[in-house]
């Protein structure tokens, strides 16, 4: 179902600022995800020191930054894989800062990691089935699977193949299909371009954009590949050394001559 009203036009955006938490609330669409003052890390290792960001329903927002800037840590903390050391995460108005992964999946979040993002030793079909683990009704599961097969015909062809034996790009496709099996509202996508040949990268990103448009998904996308990310994103945050240093619309960021000073 196309809902153009969910993707605010650029004209509706306020001026981008360089202060974290820039684009203010009060626009027509609701925030589906809000992070405020989030700090996170792995036990002793503090990686994220202060992150404020928000994501509106139906938006594609990308977070770019160098390796080790803390993007993945932030995502994992939102999803509940890592405990937040400080700050708050709000999803559809509900505080989910200390929620478990399972709860968040039930709430409609899907997370696709940057590496090891499928069950390599299981078949494509088993992978997809696992994506819909929490859906009780068999009918609904089958319908979703049909839909995913429609989006990615390859997955129907290769149903019995061991996921790990497919190429990188095909596995990426499977990971998207897996995520869609849960019919999520929010997709947390970590560096989908990692390890992919450049030609495939464009294809994957197109696929993400298409999914978002068709399903009305909100997407928080982490990327090092700035060019591709900005192609499909509405807004961008730049993260460096554990903090957000910049927030702009995708168009503004595209206008920059180079990105060396952001990383």
């Amino acid at each position: 179902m196309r809902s153009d009203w969910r993707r605010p036009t650029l004209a509706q955006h306020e001026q981008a600022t360089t202060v974290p938490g820039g684009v203010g609330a009060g626009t027509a669409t609701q925030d589906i995800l809000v992070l405020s003052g989030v700090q996170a890390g792995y036990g002793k290792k503090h990686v994220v020191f202060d992150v404020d960001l928000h994501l509106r329903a139906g938006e594609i927002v990308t977070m770019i930054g160098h390796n080790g800037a803390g993007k993945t840590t932030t995502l994992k903390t939102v999803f509940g894989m890592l405990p937040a050391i400080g700050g708050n995460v709000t999803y559809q108005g509900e505080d989910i800062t200390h929620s478990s992964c399972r709860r968040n999946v039930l709430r409609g979040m899907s997370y696709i990691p940057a590496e090891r993002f499928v069950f390599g030793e299981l078949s494509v079909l088993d992978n997809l089935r696992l994506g819909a683990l929490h859906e009780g009704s068999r009918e609904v599961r089958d319908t979703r699977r049909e839909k995913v097969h429609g989006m990615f015909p390859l997955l129907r062809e290769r149903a019995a193949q061991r996921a790990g034996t497919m190429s990188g790009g095909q596995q990426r496709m499977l990971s998207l299909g897996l995520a869609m099996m849960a019919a999520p509202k929010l997709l947390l996508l970590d560096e989908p371009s990692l390890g992919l040949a450049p030609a495939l990268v464009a294809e994957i990103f197109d696929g993400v954009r298409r999914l978002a448009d068709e399903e009305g998904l909100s997407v928080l996308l982490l990327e090092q590949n700035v060019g591709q990310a900005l192609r499909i994103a509405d807004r961008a945050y730049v993260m460096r050394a554990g903090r957000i240093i910049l927030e702009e619309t995708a168009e503004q960021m595209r206008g920059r001559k180079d990105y060396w000073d952001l990383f």
Partner: protein
Amino acid sequence: MSSVTLDNFLQLTVAGVVAGSAYALMGVAFGLILSVTGRFHFAFTFTYTISAYLASQVGESYGLPFWLSLIVGAVAGAVFGVAIERFVYRPLAAKSGVYALLVIFVASLGLAIMGRNLIALAWIDSASKQITGFTNAGYNIGPVTLTKLGIIHVVVAWVLVLLLGAVLTYTGLGRVVRAVRVNPDMALVVGVDPKTVYLAVFAIGSFMGGVEAVLSATQTAAQPDMGFTPLFYAFVVAFLAGLGSHPVRVGLVGLSIGLVENWSALFMSSRWTSLVVFGILFVYVALRPVQMVSLRRRLRPAQA
């Protein structure tokens, strides 16, 4: 040492099949637990032994038929297995961080010793416990003798192994178990709670071990020490087959071990045959290529 005759060879083959089926069952059960949960569950000896003792006890006290005693014993083993995971391993894993593997192994060792001696204490007045309700019979087929118990042992073992294989491949539970084994982080991502899966795996593995214990005790009577040797054989089978292998593959490795062990009685005294098995283990561990994924990783989901 038996002389190398065809008759001896065939009889030893029969013995090897029976022994190998037992090893197969143990290897599959232990391997399932270790590959999915990463716990070096030495206390398997305890759930194994208590199954046999309880089967014997209920058979004696309530006059239950053999099959019922068997099931009661195996279920009891499953209950103890789940309890150990829930009340000992889980809290230990939570507080031990990177040292979890070692800490759990030492605790498991302690439980094994405690368990074995508590059993001996509880049944201190019985020299050994027999499993009631079963009368064995022998069948002579040409040069070889098969026993009723031996046949049942082989059939039951392989039925369970194949059943587990089927469950893992075709059912939802099996899928979830394989998911946790193969990629614990990704399992979290699809919303699986590994802790619950661990309980299920301990139940299944301990049940299978319990069945094997009762069958073994039917043959030679239950003794407090009965769990150690089978566990050591389970190690050999599970590691040789490779952790995470399909149950049928593990089973076949177990069968091979049983055959090799018994066939070597053609060339050496049967007292030495167990040396062959452990010699194989030693050589395997010494020469295997550099390890793939260490168990350590399994005990730390969702890390950088």
